[in-house]
């Protein structure tokens, strides 16, 4: 079995009158990066929640092979927990109902923070960190769950350019170095183009474009997706060919 996630004719409705989406199909290979794009309210997060089994699909079939960990959108916490406290919470499924994190859990959490260059912040308050650092801490929290599949909901939203690049490079590394399957939603086609192998464009409730990112992310599909023209640009940068999309905003 080479697929980590496979869904066929997947559909979801809250009201049984209007569909958030239906007839949605995709196969996500193990170890690949899969991007989901769509305008606001199209059902990207609903689809992620279906993958996470937080929502039961209204129709269709969904197979998930492996353990999933979730990285929500950038958030702040009610209590001033330390970074280490936050990462340890990723071990919840490994810790008994009446137990506390063990020395082994702490070692795993600290090693994971070390890998992301965040070990020196272990005892800092989570909410004192920058947006990029917080996002990496939440990715670290997902990793200590020892999952096979990482699902990220708009991991670069609310981040500045530098932190967007940082998070994207980690998505790429975790897929290539750790063999993790990564699924993420984004509003940035150039992010999907930069790091994803395959992409799903949720154009309307029953219309999707699905395939290799290089093929499916094109000007026609993106115009249909966002209703705004995006220019496909190719250029040389530091001896590498770079492809991107530039939105064309008219006055």
């Amino acid at each position, binding site marked *: 079995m080479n697929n980590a996630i496979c869904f066929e004719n997947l559909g979801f409705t809250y009201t049984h009158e209007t569909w958030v989406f239906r007839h949605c199909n995709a196969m996500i290979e193990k170890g690949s990066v899969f991007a989901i794009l769509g305008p606001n309210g199209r059902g990207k997060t609903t689809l992620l929640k279906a993958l996470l089994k937080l929502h039961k699909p209204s129709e269709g079939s969904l197979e998930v092979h492996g353990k999933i960990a979730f990285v929500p959108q950038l958030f*702040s*916490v*009610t209590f001033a927990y330390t970074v280490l406290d936050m990462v340890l*919470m990723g071990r919840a499924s490994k810790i008994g109902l009446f137990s506390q994190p063990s020395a082994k859990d702490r070692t795993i959490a600290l090693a994971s923070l070390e890998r992301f260059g965040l070990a020196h912040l272990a005892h800092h308050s989570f909410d004192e960190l920058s947006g990029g650092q917080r996002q990496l801490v939440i990715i670290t929290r997902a990793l200590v769950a020892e999952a096979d599949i990482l699902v990220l909901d708009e991991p670069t939203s609310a981040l500045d350019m530098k932190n967007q690049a940082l998070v994207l490079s980690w998505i790429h590394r975790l897929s290539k170095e750790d063999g993790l399957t990564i699924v993420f939603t984004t509003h940035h086609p150039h992010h999907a183009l930069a790091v994803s192998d395959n992409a799903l464009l949720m154009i309307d409730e029953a219309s999707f474009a699905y395939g290799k990112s290089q093929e499916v992310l094109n000007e026609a599909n993106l115009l249909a997706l966002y209703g705004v023209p995006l220019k496909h640009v190719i250029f040389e940068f530091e001896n590498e060919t770079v492809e991107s999309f530039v939105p064309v905003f008219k006055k």
Partner: protein
Amino acid sequence: MFFKTYSMPILLLVLLCLSVVALTIGRYPIPIGDVLSIVVTTPPNASHLSSDAPWVIVEIVRLPRVLLVVLSGMGLALAGACMQGVFRNPLVGPEVVGVSSGASFGGVLAIILGWTSWGIVVMAFGFGASALVVAFVLAKFSGKASILGIVLSGVIISSFFGALMGVAQYFADPQTKLPGIIYWLMGSFAEATYEKVSIMSLVMLCAGGLLIALRWRINLLSLGESDATSLGINVHFLRWSIVALVSLIVAAQVSVSGGVGWVGLVIPHFARMLTGAEHTKLLPVSALMGGIYLLMMDTLARTLTPQEIPIGLITALIGTPIFAVVFWKMQGKGWSHE
């Protein structure tokens, strides 16, 4: 830093010392040496000549009272810290589900029916537990199993039992029943007995013990429903389990001493200043500080004036200004945002 590291043994020591001091002072002061000798040399279930005044005062009057106050304070502060974590709200106290209103009405009804102290305990505990069941059913039927559903159910239940208490007071005999009702509602540990201590001990051992065992899980619940679920925990089961355990403690406390507000709301904030927000450390420290705080308040309540002041009044009168000053100084420390 030193206090943070050794907060548990330090607080335990303070609680022990305060308990001994509380046994010595009162209308009839007893030297500390006599108190220690009476407590240490008296075997459990001992009977003694009633003419031995110091022994009667220490063993029959003050010791059960001190034990009941400490257990109640510990229970209320522990319950408050749990509820603030589960509800992710600093303004939440253990009474949010409406259990204390239910228990208070049970007590008022027992007084109107002319029942004895045991009748009050049973009725208060029974009505408190029923309020929890009603809260669960209301939240379930409203289709809002979320925190909002529980809070709304609590508001409905509190208002309903509040109205029932108003009706009961309106119809109560103003000469024979009403003063007793009002005094009971303001809370007092004056009628502490070893039987009441046993009830509170049993509830604290079971419900308090389970809450302490679940303390790390409260961290997860405090992240919010979807994030906690994504970490692989059964949020609804865990949340209701904690609410039920807290409610048992609150119902037991109201049934043995009447209404004592403010402790469960205030003490967790003080504890958070000492240990930080992480619930593994916060819950035991909250419990100890709750015991210390309520013991101090009760000792003041019975020694400040010739006639005892109801504990509910003194916890509010002294607690609120202290809380205001401390909260102003700490500027929300332990809480990340509004």
